């Protein structure tokens, strides 16, 4: 557990709950439900020093640091979306594999409906 992480833990009032010897980057959370939530989130966050790999999959040191951060936050009772927002604020939208719902991504998110709708119109013409 790095100095910065320790400082965070102190700020969050977690001192006393001793961190595991190897740090949260490679130690699952004791509560299985929290661990499952943390793991789901880790699969959706990009390892910034790797090529198209999530922090759940990567061996890179930076991925380990980010996993530790995710687990600490989840352990402290923060919601996964809250943690995602914090990481996006720190590293930018690029860190999240799920594109943000924003005015400039509406076409992306509407694509399945647009494609099926346009297709249905074409099919109606073919079946006419």
């Amino acid at each position: 557990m790095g100095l910065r992480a320790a400082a965070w833990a102190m700020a969050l009032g977690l001192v006393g709950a001793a961190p595991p010897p190897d740090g949260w980057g490679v130690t699952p959370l004791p509560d299985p439900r929290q661990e499952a939530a943390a793991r789901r989130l880790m699969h959706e966050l990009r390892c910034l020093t790797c090529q198209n790999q999530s922090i759940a999959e990567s061996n890179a040191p930076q991925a380990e640091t980010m996993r530790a951060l995710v687990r600490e936050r989840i352990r402290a009772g923060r919601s996964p979306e809250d943690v995602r927002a914090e990481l996006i604020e720190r590293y930018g939208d690029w860190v999240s594999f799920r594109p943000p719902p924003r005015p400039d991504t509406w076409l992306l998110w509407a694509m399945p409906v647009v494609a099926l709708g346009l297709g249905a119109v074409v099919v109606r013409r073919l079946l006419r």
Partner: protein
Amino acid sequence: MTAVLPPIPELGHLALWLALAAALVQAVAPWHARLGQAAAPAAAAQGLLVLGAFVALGWAFLVSDFSVELVTANSHTMKPTLYKLTGIWANHEGSMLLWVLILALAGLLVALMPAPLGPAFRARALGVAGMVSAGFLAFLLLASNPFTRIEPAPTEGRGLNPLLQDPGLAFHPPTLYVGYVGLVVAFALAVAALLEGRVSSDWARATRPWVAGAWAFLTLGIALGAWWAYYELGWGGWWFWDPVENAALMPWLVATALLHSIRVLETRGALPNWTLMLAILGFALSMLGTFIVRSGVLSSVHAFAVDPTRGLFLLVLLAGLTGGAFLVWALKAPRIAEGARFAAFSREGSLVLNNLLLLALLSIVLVGTLYPLALEGVSGRQISVGPPYFNATTLPIVLGLAVLMGVGPLLAWKRNPRPGFVRRLWPPLAAALAFGLIGLALGLKTVLAVLGFAAAGWLIVASLLPFVGRRRVPTFLALGTAIAHLGAGLALLGATASGALQREALVSLRVGDGFAVGGLEVRLYDVGPVAGPNWTALEATLHVSRDGRPVATLTPQSRTYTTPPMETTEAGIVGWRGGDLYAALGKPDGSGRWQIHFWIKPLVHLLWVGAVLMATGAAVAAGGRARMAWPGRARPLVSRPVPVPAE
């Protein structure tokens, strides 16, 4: 040493220029009244010349002629001979040459085979293929010359990226390229048909083996790539929605749609314009894939801007060829007679819905792949479009397709099903229910995963139904369809199970430590050095047991290659209950602990079995047709219904 080598690379370079000349003759001759006869010989000449150029480059790699820049950059004297040869296409220039070679050999094949639609039609199709060839040969010669020399020649090469020194990846590009070239031939036949205004069942019959062959090779090529990523990268997955993967998936989606619509055209004479449009679209997306992978646009729009020569060349080629073809389609399609009509719940109706769903998938993958590039180009903002987006948007459509695949082959051509048809669906429905319940019992957590199991059960049983209670010997086509659909069902089951039921642990261990995952105990027994021909490695020995009884021993490695210096992860994989136990070894943390990433991947083998069955099914379906078309054995199809004339 280099001084005494014969000037083989220059001969290869010359052969490429002559091939370009032959391709230009091939492209121009069919549109000229007297030169029309020249297209087939020109195609044959082009095929032999490009083959000569390829052999010349292969020779340079084999003898390690480091005066050739490409050999220096990608080879090494100590490299195993197999990878010296596969190194020919493990780089930009060589892989483009391989692409052109396969296209030229396809042209040679077309020129030598009988012309089922007449010599004039064949000449025009060869003319279109010649334009594609000429474009790519010009790209090779002007922007990607593989024969460039360097002076003075170095005495040793820089070696090949060790991730590429692997049988899975060595044969992944040639397999995919055969698929792409099959789509180019379908494209050429489609444009020729548009220009002649002749789109018939005969055209579909002559074109379908090319489409089926292309589809089989694309399927195998994509599966090889996924398999390579699975065992070589050590990330525990086989599909990452990476733009390079999507670039190969998009032509496959169109080829799948085309394979089904061309069947409608062949059997019933319906959907002519739609089928031609798909043939052009399939080619357009293989071109787009080539552009995405080869231009450097992927890493960032800015990387593309740094050296835009190659990217721009490909973009102009792409725009010219596909733009021209779509223009011809727009001008000529309205004059082609409308196809035969059919009821909504007929076989044709199900195939139209199949096409709709596949093209919706295509739109999602296309937009999802290009959106980050477009957004960065327009606003400078960087976003990631990754698995959460693609899984959420595509998987429901994939499930819909699986349901449709089960019911489609049971429907009758032209008319709605008779009353009582629904009774035939009881067995697959029961299987769907059973698979869903088994999945729940095994611990599936999400609705989507349970539906995935159910859809797989439905499809596996439904794909066998057309043969139940039938005495007649099935046609090659029906048999091939059933095999391919069964393969898709198995692949769906393997994909769902290996994803949703996987167990995973990422831990840090000292030698002697252990951990528990998914009912198994895993112990780090030892870590020691091992050595290979051009690498050294640290190898961990993991003992896996269940209730005290040994199950498997895994030996993941962390390898260090010498030329070029590079570290790779060699996963330790052992098959277990139709799936895999999978482990990757990370770096030591300096205090005697080792990072171990361990996965249980249930039923993942079904994915590879499914892919092989899909390709086999396509080959069986095309094989029957090829046999019919073979000269001297031509005979009418027994089961083909009389086509209804177009109105």
